C-alpha cells in the first residue's frame, strides 16, 4: 500500500486515526498500530510480513539475552548472532544476485583473458527484494548494538518493540529511527490520543504535492531522454541530470514529509531527514542535510567504529571511503551505486584535506560548486551501466549544442531547482500549525490537483532500496 493511493488515504489512514482516538489504553493502541502496520506491509507481499516478524522476534529475544547476560563472551555471541541474522537477510535478499553476477562476470573475464576453460559457476536466482528491508534491518541492528553498548535498556514488551520496527509511517523508506528516540515516545503515550492534527495534515499534504506535482512531473519529462543517453546534447544532458537531482530530492523528501506528517497525526515525532541539501556548502555539509538518518547511522555504526578521524589523515580517508562505498552499496546492489558512494568518499576526503582553502570562498561559490558536484554524482546513481554513465558524462562535456531545449523540462526543472535552491524555509522549518487561511486554501487546491493525478503517480524511488 502506498501513501499516494486512495486505499491508504480513504480507508487505511482514517481507520488508523479512528482506532487511535477510540483506544484509550496506550498498550492496546500500540498493539493496534503494530497490527495495522503489518496489514499495511502485507500489501507489499504477505510473506514479507513473516520475514519481518521473524527478524523482530529474534532481535527482541537476543536483546533480552544481551542485557541479562553477565559474560562478555556470551553478550558478544548474542550480538554477533543478531548482526549475522540481520546482515544475512540483507545479504541474501539484496546482494545475492549481485554477488553471483559478479562471480560469473569475473569467471567469464578470466576465461577470455587466460583461455582456461571455465564453466559458469552460478546462475542468478529469482529473489524478490522485500520492501523496506534495508531500513528496518538497520533499525534492528542499531537496537541490538545500542543494547549491547548499554546505551539503552532492552525493551521488555514485545509489542512496543514490534511497533518500533514496523510502525507504518517509517517502515518502507525511513526515516531510519533510533530506538532511543521512538521507544520513549511510545511509552509516553497518554490514554487520550494526542495529535498535532493541522501540523501533521499539512505536512503530509505538502509531501504528497511534492511527490505527485513535482517529482512525478519531472520523471515524465526526463525518463524518455534517459532511455538513450548517447543521443543527448550538452544542454539536454545537463538539464536531464539537474532534473533527476530535483526528482530524487522531491520524491524522497516528499515521502519523508508524508511520513513525518503521519507521525504527527498519530502523535509521534519522527526525525528530520532532509534539510535543504542542495544548499550545502561542502560535501560534509551535504551529508548533514541529505538522508540525515542514514548518514547518522553510517557515522555512528561504521565510520566512528572504524576509527573516524582519530588516527591521522590516511586512516581518515580510508574510513571515509569505506563508509561511503558501503553507503553506496546500501542504496542498491550494483557497481554504479558503489561508484556513486566512491565519488562522495573522494569528495569528503578531498574536502577534509583542503577544508581551509575551500571554506575561504564565498558561500555562493561554494554552494554552486557543491551543486555542480552533486548533479555530476547523480549520473552513476541513475544510470546503471558503465557505458551509459560514460556516455552521459561525455554528453555533459561535449560542447554539442545541436539539439534544442526541451521546454517542458526546462519549466518544471527550473521551477523545482529554484524551490530547492532559493526558497528560504524548507518543510521542516515551516510551522504548519500556524498557517493562515489563504495558505490553507492554496495548499488545499494544490492537494486537489494532486489527488486528480495520484493514480498516475509512480512508486517512490527509495522503495527500491
Amino acid at each position, binding site marked *: 500500500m502506498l501513501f499516494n493511493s486512495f486505499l491508504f488515504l480513504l480507508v487505511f489512514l482514517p481507520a488508523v486515526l479512528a482506532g487511535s482516538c477510540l483506544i484509550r489504553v496506550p498498550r492496546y493502541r500500540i498493539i493496534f498500530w503494530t497490527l495495522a502496520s503489518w496489514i499495511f506491509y502485507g500489501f507489499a507481499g504477505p510473506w514479507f510480513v513473516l520475514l519481518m516478524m521473524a527478524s523482530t522476534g529474534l532481535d527482541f529475544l537476543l536483546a533480552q539475552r544481551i542485557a541479562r547476560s553477565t559474560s562478555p563472551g556470551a553478550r558478544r555471541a548474542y550480538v554477533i548472532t543478531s548482526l549475522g541474522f540481520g546482515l544475512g537477510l540483507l545479504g541474501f535478499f539484496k546482494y545475492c544476485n549481485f554477488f553471483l553476477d559478479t562471480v560469473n562476470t569475473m569467471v567469464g573475464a578470466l576465461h577470455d583473458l587466460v583461455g582456461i576453460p571455465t564453466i559458469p559457476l552460478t546462475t542468478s536466482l*529469482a529473489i524478490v527484494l522485500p520492501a523496506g528491508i534495508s531500513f528496518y534491518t538497520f533499525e534492528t541492528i542499531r537496537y541490538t548494538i545500542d543494547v549491547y553498548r548499554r546505551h539503552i535498556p532492552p525493551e521488555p514488551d514485545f509489542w512496543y518493540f514490534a511497533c518500533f520496527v514496523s510502525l507504518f509511517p517509517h517502515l518502507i523508506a525511513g526515516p531510519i529511527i533510533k530506538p532511543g528516540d521512538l521507544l520513549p515516545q511510545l511509552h509516553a503515550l497518554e490514554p487520550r490520543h494526542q*495529535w498535532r492534527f493541522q501540523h501533521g495534515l499539512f505536512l503530509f499534504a505538502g509531501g504528497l504535492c511534492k511527490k505527485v506535482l513535482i517529482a512525478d512531473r519531472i520523471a515524465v519529462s526526463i525518463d524518455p531522454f534517459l532511455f538513450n543517453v548517447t543521443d543527448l546534447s550538452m544542454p539536454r544532458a545537463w538539464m536531464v541530470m539537474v532534473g533527476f537531482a530535483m526528482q530524487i530530492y522531491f520524491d524522497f523528501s516528499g515521502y519523508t514529509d508524508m511520513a513525518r506528517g503521519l507521525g504527527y497525526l498519530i502523535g509521534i515525532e519522527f526525525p528530520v531527514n532532509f534539510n535543504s541539501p542542495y544548499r550545502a556548502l561542502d560535501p560534509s555539509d551535504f551529508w548533514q542535510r541529505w538522508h540525515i538518518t542514514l548518514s547518522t547511522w553510517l557515522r555512528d555504526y561504521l565510520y566512528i567504529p572504524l576509527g573516524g578521524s582519530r588516527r591521522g589523515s590516511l586512516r581518515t580517508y580510508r574510513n571515509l571511503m569505506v563508509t561511503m562505498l558501503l553507503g553506496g552499496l546500501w542504496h542498491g546492489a550494483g557497481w554504479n551505486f558503489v561508484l556513486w558512494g566512491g565519488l562522495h568518499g573522494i569528495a569528503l576526503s578531498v574536502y577534509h584535506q583542503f577544508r581551509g582553502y575551500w571554506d575561504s570562498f564565498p558561500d555562493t561559490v561554494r554552494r554552486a560548486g557543491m551543486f555542480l558536484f552533486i548533479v555530476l554524482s547523480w549520473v552513476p546513481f541513475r544510470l546503471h551501466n558503465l557505458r551509459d554513465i560514460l556516455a552521459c558524462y561525455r554528453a555533459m562535456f561535449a560542447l554539442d549544442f545541436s539539439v534544442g531545449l526541451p521546454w517542458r523540462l526546462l519549466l518544471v526543472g527550473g521551477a523545482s531547482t529554484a524551490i530547492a535552491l532559493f526558497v528560504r524555509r524548507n518543510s521542516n522549518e515551516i510551522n504548519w500549525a500556524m498557517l493562515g487561511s489563504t495558505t*490553507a*486554501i492554496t495548499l488545499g487546491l494544490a492537494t*486537489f490537483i494532486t489527488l*486528480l493525478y495520484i493514480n498516475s503517480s509512480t512508486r517512490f524511488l527509495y522503495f527500491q532500496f
Partner: protein
Amino acid sequence: MKRCRAPVTLFLLAAGVPFVLSFACFLISQRGSLLTEPEEYIAALKQARRISYRIGLSAWKHALARNPLCSEADEVVIGSSRVREIDTIVAGTSVCNLYVEGLSAPGFARLAQALAPPAPGEHHVVYVGLDHFWLWSVDTRNFAGVEHMLLTRARPLWRVWAALQPLNFFTGSDLFEAMRRYRQSSPRFEDQANGWYYLDGHVFYASYYAKKRAGLHHSVSQQEIEESVRALFHQGRVRESHLHALEAGVRHLHAKGYAVRLFWNPLSYAHLEATQRLFPVLFQQTIEAIDRLASTLPLDHYFPASQTLDASRFGCTESDDFDELHVDIDCLRRVFSVAFHSSKAHT
C-alpha cells in the same frame, strides 16, 4: 485532542469539494460503463444492436453465458481478446462470443460453469481458443473477486462498490477525456476508435478497418512485439492447477451437452517467431502439456498448435496484424473457413 481550527476546515474544503465534484462529473459521464448492471447492459444491446461503451467484461460475459442468447446460438466462442472479433460472419452461423481480455484456464472453467446448457436434442459447438498464457496467467481477479460476489448476492452494495472502483484508476486526464466524449455524444461509426460492442458479445473496431480498407496500416515494430512477448511469458510456467482448470472446464461443457473444439489462437508470424526465439522451452512445454491433456479429454475436435497457431499458414500477412498481440478479423475469417469449416465438413 486539539480542536480543529478553521485552516484545516478550509484546507479540507479546498481539496475535497473540487475533487468530489470532479469525480462525480466523471462518474456521471461514464455511468453507462461504470454503473450499468450486466443484465441492463444486455437489454440495452438488444435495443440498440451495438453500443460504443462496455461494462466490465467478466461481469458482462458471465451474464451473457447464463442468457438464452448464448445457449441458443449454434456456436459459442470462449477465449482471450484474441477471439474478440469473432462474429456471425466469421463463424458462418449464429455465435455467442464469451471473450474476456487476459482470460486463462481458471477463468475459462468459471465461464464454462456459468454457460447455460443447450436445449435438449440440439447440437451446439463451443470453440475454445487457447493461448500459452492460459497455463500460468492469473485472472481470478476477474472471476472470483468482490464484484462477482456482490453482483450475485447484494446488488445495492455492488452499485456502491462500482461507484468507488474508479478511484483505483481515475485521473485528471480521464476527467478531461470523459468531458470530451460527453460533448461528442454521437460519434460516427467509422470514427469510433474504441470499438463497438454487439449483442452476441463480439467487438468490432470500425476505424481500424476503415483505415485498412483505405490502405493505411500501422506496422508493428520488432521491439513492440518482443516487449509484448516478454510481458506474456515473463515468469511463466506450466501450472498443474491451470491444467486441472482447463480439464474441468472442458468436462463441464461436455456434461452440458456441448461439442467442444479446442484450438490454438492464431498468431502473427513475427509474434510466433519472437516467442519461439525468446522462450523456446516454455513455448514447447506448454504445447506439449496441452497436447497430452487434450488426448484424455472428451473433445469433439482438437486442432493442435501445428494447425492453427501460425496465422501465416492461412495466408495472413503483416497487414492483417491488428497490433503486436492480435491478428485482425480478415485473418480470423481465413482461419475459420480453412481450418474449422473444412474440418466441420469432415465431421
